[in-house]
């Protein structure tokens, strides 16, 4: 009985000791500048946290309110779908419909708008008729390859991602106006036809970066 009491006392004392040593870490009054520079450096175990100098990582969100319910107002999967294919009065509803329910709710509207854009549409270069094409688009998610090239369209690969430099609007226009042959498209501005398969803007106005964060610096 006595022995048990000693062990229990020792155990509690150990707990208190451990607790105190953790408190010591939290009592640093002036953490070094590396604890607020937004990058993980020194012996930090996270960004500006952990290690010997900064506050413990598990404390990083303490005291900050992340509670509450967040309700959807906007969404985007593939580029420009709502702007090009959804009737204006339906766009708010579209932006608050989950992808698995989009086809039932919007495919017919998208097909009507496709035909309004191009009354001569029969099939595109992916051999899709108007219903098949707009059914694909109405599942408005961006497909991203886990392996291989990730591009919206690079002349070879189709719908395996979206790179910054991809001319996504030209590919949309090609699918809408180009007919069934990518190699010899309709509406290419020759033979008296209007130019509808390209907007004449093929790249961004500012060069992208080759490394993170990839986007060009602001103006």
């Amino acid at each position, binding site marked *: 009985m006595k022995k048990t009491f000693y062990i229990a006392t020792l155990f509690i004392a150990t707990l208190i000791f451990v607790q105190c040593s953790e408190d010591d870490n939290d009592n640093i009054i002036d953490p070094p500048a590396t604890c607020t520079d*937004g990058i993980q450096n020194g012996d930090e175990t996270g960004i500006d946290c952990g290690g010997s100098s900064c506050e413990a990582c598990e404390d990083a969100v303490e005291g900050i309110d992340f509670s509450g319910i967040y*309700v959807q107002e906007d969404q985007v999967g593939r580029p420009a779908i709502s702007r090009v294919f959804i009737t204006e009065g339906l766009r708010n509803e579209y932006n608050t419909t989950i992808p698995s329910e989009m086809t039932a709710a919007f495919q017919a509207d998208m097909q009507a708008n496709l035909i309004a854009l191009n009354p001569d549409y029969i099939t595109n270069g992916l051999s899709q008729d108007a219903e098949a094409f707009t059914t694909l688009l109405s599942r408005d998610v*961006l497909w991203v390859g886990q*392996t291989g090239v990730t591009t919206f369209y690079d002349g070879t690969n189709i719908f395996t*991602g979206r790179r910054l430099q991809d001319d996504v609007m030209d590919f949309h226009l090609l699918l809408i106006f180009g007919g069934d042959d990518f190699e010899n498209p309709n509406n290419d501005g020759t033979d008296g036809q209007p130019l509808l398969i390209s907007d004449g*803007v093929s790249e961004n106005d500012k060069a992208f970066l080759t490394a993170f964060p990839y986007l060009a610096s602001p103006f």
Partner: protein
Amino acid sequence: MNKTKLVSALAFTGLLIAVPFLLAGDHLDASGVNGTSSDLTSFYAFQGANTNNIVLVANMQGFLPSGTASENAVFDEDVLVEFNIDTTGDLIEDLVIQATRRGDTMYFFGPVVPSTTGLQSEIATFGTINRVVISSGATDAEAIVGSNNGMQFFAGARDDSFFFDLNRFNQVVAGEVSGFNEVGEDTFAGTNVLSIVIELPKSMLGTGAIGVNPQAPSTPIFSMWVEAKRKQ
């Protein structure tokens, strides 16, 4: 008011007047979100410079004027930007990465299995939490990048990466002109957006689903989309 300030004030006023006439890809796409702090403009997802990684980009609050982005637009603390990742091909998110601002910092949660799917979310404070100080500088050297566990994070103003002759497109749709010009004008040139960029190992997202993309049936595919959600 000195002359420089007067000129920039006039220029900014002019831009504010012009903005309602500009309609974009997903920029200002619907009346419910036009010009608000939850208006998403573009979503990108691509393999990183390190081919083991995937990069996710969400842009929002488009047509920010040059030089004044950080003054005129900030990430809204009441808005949650949520990257949704369906790994099985059923159009239901299996993983999310959430981002929301508190003070001068963008906090990132996940990738994590969300407590609920669909139109309403809670912030997944039970998952991996990362953060980066929001960049306010205008040069690449001033971009603040956070990194942790093989993930990298950025939040701040950037050049709008979307390019399109939107004005001409609107004219084509309105029947005012028959087609595009061979050399178009990028309606988005010289304008900024607020960007959130995340790079993470593909292995954090799993393997993807085969047979999702008819154009690449044997490629394992993640189906991804971004949502902007507002605190109620």
